[in-house]
């Protein structure tokens, strides 16, 4: 029995380089950087003072009466805006005559933003003189003074996908996953599988996240994972460059409508690409470090190629996870060589959109898949910017600094790897 095919019929984004797919892709092709000083809070004394923030975001442009979502986290608000674009793109707004129970949601989403002020004021007030313990009743009293109940409710992690289902009347399976930086790629891969198996005909899927808040920057700074190139923020995200010193936080959302191929054809939907390959593995190695030879990443890419029925040479472009950390970029380079074979790997262009957009964490994989699909459709490969000093251990063709025209790309591969060891590879193909 032949397997059900899954195609992309709608795409939408909210990113540091634009709030529409067209605007973002134009900026990415120009090699622009979305990185600048952090404005969401006063980060002047943090080890890292910059990030790729979404600028000028107005949810009211995308939904009626945005005040309904005023208490929601940025993750929910970004997801609503990107979803609206994707559904509009797919001609699926306003009922559109599809069975709502066959239309699900799979979101790779971060948490809402923990109320920093409440937690710190409560904890500070409740801390014992030596600062080692806390007095719970004092914490509770202080916290109750500051907590905003509706906002606390919206921090619950199932609410983002719930709002999408409510707002757009999607009554099929409703999933949220959070596998760190792999989350939205994993959500898309699992959504593909749900359509293939028959659990749904349509899935609104992708990811949304913002960790540009005091706890997020604190956590990543403590792990020494972020670039600290505070003097030149636009130069900070430099994947595969020898002088890279960590990743740059970004924020935003990328959402796609996935649809069973015959269903899409039947209603005359625009078809942007087919999702042909999904590979998913776990490193079973360490919490944050990738396996040095990229063991799990190699298998994720091989599984995706096998799933798509492709040979390595068929892949015309790779959108790398490419975080700009020493460990990732070296391990990913080794993994690409191991999975494609060195000869093919050296001939395959690889670039990292994180050099421009920063790392959108849970939303990264979805936005990068959208960029990969556009690269294939528009015959232009986005660059890796800030690539200045080659690293002998990173010796692939990273499309340095300027976009490159390339026609005839039929298959693109996008990698996403998470803290915690989740490795996801997606392959999209021309239809």
């Amino acid at each position, binding site marked *: 029995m032949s397997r059900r095919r899954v195609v992309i019929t709608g795409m939408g984004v909210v990113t540091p380089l634009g709030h529409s797919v067209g605007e973002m892709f134009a900026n990415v092709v120009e090699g622009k950087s979305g990185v600048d000083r952090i404005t969401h*809070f006063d980060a002047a*004394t943090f080890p890292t003072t910059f990030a790729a923030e979404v600028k000028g975001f107005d949810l009211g442009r995308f939904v009626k009466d945005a005040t309904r979502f005023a208490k929601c986290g940025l993750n929910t608000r970004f997801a609503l805006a990107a979803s609206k674009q994707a559904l509009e793109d797919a001609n699926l707004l306003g009922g559109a005559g599809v069975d709502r129970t066959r239309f*699900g949601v799979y979101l790779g*989403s971060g*948490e809402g933003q923990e109320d920093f*002020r409440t*937690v*710190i*004021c409560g*904890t*500070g*007030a409740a*801390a014992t003189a030596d600062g*080692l313990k*806390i007095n*719970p*009743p004092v914490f*509770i*009293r202080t*916290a109750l003074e500051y907590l905003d*109940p*509706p906002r*606390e409710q919206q921090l*619950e*992690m*199932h609410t983002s996908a*719930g709002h999408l*289902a*409510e707002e757009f009347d*999607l009554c*099929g*399976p*409703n*999933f949220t*996953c*959070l*596998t*760190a930086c792999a989350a939205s790629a994993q959500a898309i891969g*699992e959504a593909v*599988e749900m359509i293939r*198996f*028959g*659990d749904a005909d349509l899935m609104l899927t992708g990811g949304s996240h913002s960790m540009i808040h*005091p706890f997020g920057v*604190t*956590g990543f700074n*403590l*792990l*020494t994972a972020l670039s600290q190139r505070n003097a030149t923020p636009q130069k900070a995200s430099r994947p595969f460059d020898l002088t890279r010193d960590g990743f740059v936080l970004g924020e935003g959302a990328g959402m796609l409508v996935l649809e069973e191929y015959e269903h899409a054809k039947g209603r005359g939907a625009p078809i942007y690409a087919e999702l042909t390959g999904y590979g*998913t593995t*776990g*490193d*079973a190695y360490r*919490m944050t470090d990738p396996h040095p030879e990229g*063991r799990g990443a190699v298998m994720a890419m091989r*599984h995706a190629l096998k799933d798509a029925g492709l040979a390595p040479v068929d892949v015309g472009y790779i959108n790398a996870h490419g975080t700009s950390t020493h460990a990732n970029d070296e391990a990913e380079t080794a993994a690409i060589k191991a999975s494609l074979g060195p000869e093919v790997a050296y001939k395959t262009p690889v670039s990292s959109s994180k050099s421009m957009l920063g790392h959108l964490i849970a939303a990264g994989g979805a936005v990068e898949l959208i960029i990969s699909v556009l690269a294939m459709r528009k015959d232009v490969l986005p660059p890796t910017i800030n690539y200045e000093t080659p690293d002998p251990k990173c010796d692939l063709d990273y499309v340095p600094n300027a976009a490159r025209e390339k026609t005839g790309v039929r298959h693109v591969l996008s990698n996403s790897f*998470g*803290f*915690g*060891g989740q490795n996801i590879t997606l392959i999209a193909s021309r239809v």
Partner: protein
Amino acid sequence: MPSTSRRAVFTGLGVFSPVGSGAEAFWQALRAGACGVHTVRSFDASALACHVAGEVADFDAKKVVPKEHKKRLNQMGRAVQLGLCAAYRAWEDAKGPQKGQIDPFRYGVEFACMMVATELEDLARASKVSLNGTPGSVNMAVWGRDGLRDIPPQWMLKYLPNMPACHTSILVDAQGPNNSITSGDVAGLLALGEAYRAMNRDLADAFLVGGCESKINPLSFTRHNTFQPLTRRNDIPEQALRPFDADRDGTVLGEGAAAVSLESLDFAKGRGAAILAELVGFAAGFDRGRKGPVLAGVIRNALKEAGIQPSDVDHVNAGASGSKELDAFEARAIAEVFGDSIPVYAARPHFGSMGAASGLVELTASILALRHGELPGTLNHEKPDPACPIQVHTGAPRSVTKPYVVKLSYTDMGQCAAVVVRKWDE
């Protein structure tokens, strides 16, 4: 559904709950009508409007995990530790698969877990130095410069929802699919369903599927008190969670974890594993407005996949949160599919609403009921509610008379799921 779909069976159980840890202790407690809901003991919560909860007493992860993994326990929040320990117990119960028995890339891990609340002690010094004297404000300059130095470097990693699955994969060298579902009270069944589909599609031979949650800490418990409809029966905690009862007044929070070893039937037989039950149906949806028809449709889809009729089902194991609105929602859907005579069972009054852990802890009760051939009575259902037109099984245990059970879970927004489990008698 594809006719080539591979079958999946349960081969091991691990559970940590307020009424006992380990499948046998858990079962005996349910049978005896024990209740693990008390006034909160781990900290003084008396200032909160609801200060009763189900806590896992004497939980010590060091006594569970193998020696070489103990040093990693201080990098895990309590929920993560509970989840890891449940997964390890499920793996032990299933007697493997051991290294060498399975291709590591065909061994997956799937967890239900939410963002774990920060332990306030980790932030105590940093917070103290960063208060600037004005009530309700934090000195960001001091926090960024001095506060960060007082926080453990791996602070963030203790609390990420994908950590139970990460640590479990390291423990048993499972390098296959590894996902973490964060859909609240329905997450456990969604995680199980996703692992089941991976098995159906021949992407894996075995999975450890777990769910874990602990909100019984000052931060989470205070937060939930501000927005969740929790019981006010602080004086009689063991009667507080009252499923489908006319006098129910809200849910009770609990903590705990459960995990199952799920294997493809062929693989389990091949390695000689003892089979506990078979997973035969799964479906999920979103019931907009929590009215009932979508949940009813989800139940029908799960029955259809199992190839059975409503009359083949022994009992429905309900989510039964004890909330006024949500119990009525669930009851309407059950009644729509099964009528008003099927026995409905709720395990939740014993230990509270465990969020991401609920689905699998409660499912464990029904797997054990199928094994033991009897279903315990539901606690605290005394006065039927016309808004809940179903037959709740109460009182003495009844004999299990049919080979299938249906387990339901839902969230307060409308995410819902159903699984169908078949008694193993081959």
